[in-house]
């Protein structure tokens, strides 16, 4: 029985990890684009971006997930745009998570960029560097150093937030654990698999914590 449960939980946790990884891969760069939008000198773009960020951060991720998954099918005459089954649920979850997390990341980036003293940029300009060179050679690393602690917080939250995708029946680890309570693989009424999913989260977040401590130490050589 133990091996059956672990096998099912592993499979669920793989889905959790996939959603986690895809969200990071999408949201980390998209967040930067949104951050630049929210700092744009072109005020309509700036206001629009900040409005979007306000809406996304101001409403529950669960609600956004439900809207993205169910609403297109009700509005479009061609029916739901999502592929059927688990791939469709995963795609919808990925999009909702990427948009949601990109908005949070963008605010962290904005703080990080604005926290780099103006003098740094001016020193680069006076030395004849292009805006691009200034961003990549000067500002970026100083910004990364500033954002590592808030980003690690947000990323650890993301690990746990992936369980929200269960609301559209994405078969992540909590869904897999809960299945043994409802009845699955010939077992039903088993409570411990659900509790046991916590161990997966704890271990994975432990690894992430070690990783972020390492990154912070690596960036400790300058101030």
């Amino acid at each position, binding site marked *: 029985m133990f091996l059956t449960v672990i096998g099912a939980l592993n499979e669920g946790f793989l889905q959790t990890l996939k959603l986690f990884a895809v969200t990071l891969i999408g949201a980390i760069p998209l967040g930067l684009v949104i951050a630049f939008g929210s700092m744009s000198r072109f005020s309509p773009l700036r206001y629009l971006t900040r409005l979007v960020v306000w809406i996304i951060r101001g409403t529950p991720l669960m609600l956004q997930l439900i809207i993205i998954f169910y609403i297109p099918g009700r509005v479009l005459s061609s029916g739901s745009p999502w592929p059927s089954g688990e791939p469709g649920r995963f795609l919808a979850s990925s999009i909702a998570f990427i948009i949601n997390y990109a908005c949070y990341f963008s605010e962290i980036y904005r703080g990080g960029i604005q926290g780099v*003293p103006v*003098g*740094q940029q*001016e*020193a*680069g*300009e*006076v*030395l*004849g*560097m*292009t805006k691009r*060179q200034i961003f990549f*050679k*000067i500002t970026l*690393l*100083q910004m990364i*150093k500033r954002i590592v602690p808030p980003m690690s917080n947000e990323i650890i939250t993301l690990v746990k937030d992936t369980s929200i995708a269960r609301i559209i029946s994405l078969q992540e680890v909590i869904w897999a654990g809960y299945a043994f309570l409802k009845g699955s693989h010939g077992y039903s009424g088993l409570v411990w698999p659900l509790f046991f999913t916590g161990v997966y989260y704890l271990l994975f977040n432990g690894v992430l914590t070690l990783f972020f401590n390492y990154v912070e130490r690596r960036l400790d*050589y*300058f*101030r």
Partner: protein
Amino acid sequence: MSILEVNHIEKHFGATKVLSDISFSLEKGQALSIIGSSGSGKTTLLRCLNFLETPDSGTISVNDHVIFDAADPATQQEKEIRAKRLHFGLVFQNFNLFPQYTALQNVTLARELLAKERGGESKADIEAAGRELLAQMGLADRASHYPHQLSGGQQQRVAIARALALHPDILCFDEPTSALDPELTGEVLRVIRNLAEQKTTMIIVTHEMAFARDVADQVIFMDGGLIVEQGDPREVIDHPKEERTRQFLSRYAEN
């Protein structure tokens, strides 16, 4: 022939006029000191020369070539401004060294980026030149230190080396010792004095009156965005003609 010619520069911040009708010229190999109280427009003037601010009117010429004309947008194109900036070097009050780079990397970074774009110097040549500049600043043994491991005076000397690395025609100093502890100003002033002796063309905004008098070939006293008095430093500082200059200098003497 003047290396720098500034004509009728004006600058407003909103409704406030911070520079009005600024004109002066500078000969190659000369040092110009700009003195005046805080808010008199000295720093803004330097920032205009370095294209960190855009004057509302007036022209700036280097080597008889108009590099900025407020009335001619063609002289203000982003791409060209980059090249024009290289006529000037700027040493900031707060050093503004790049914290993630060593002293040597601070000095070589911009030159390496330029070399990569235009071809030419090898990385090894640039590094050798950077080490030599640091040695000239008395910092040969600090090349691999990061800014936070250096004292304020050392940081400012790295910043001077960084500005010199690009061989600017005119090196500008914006109150180079104002952010330093009093006991550290001497080492920075000594370096600037050496540069003056080597006939580096310089503009120095400073509150160090004795230094301005000794080092500069020309002094400008500014007040309220205007040039009130300019000329030989011994004249302007020791025998000011204008009442405002006298008041400013006597306030200084009291302190």
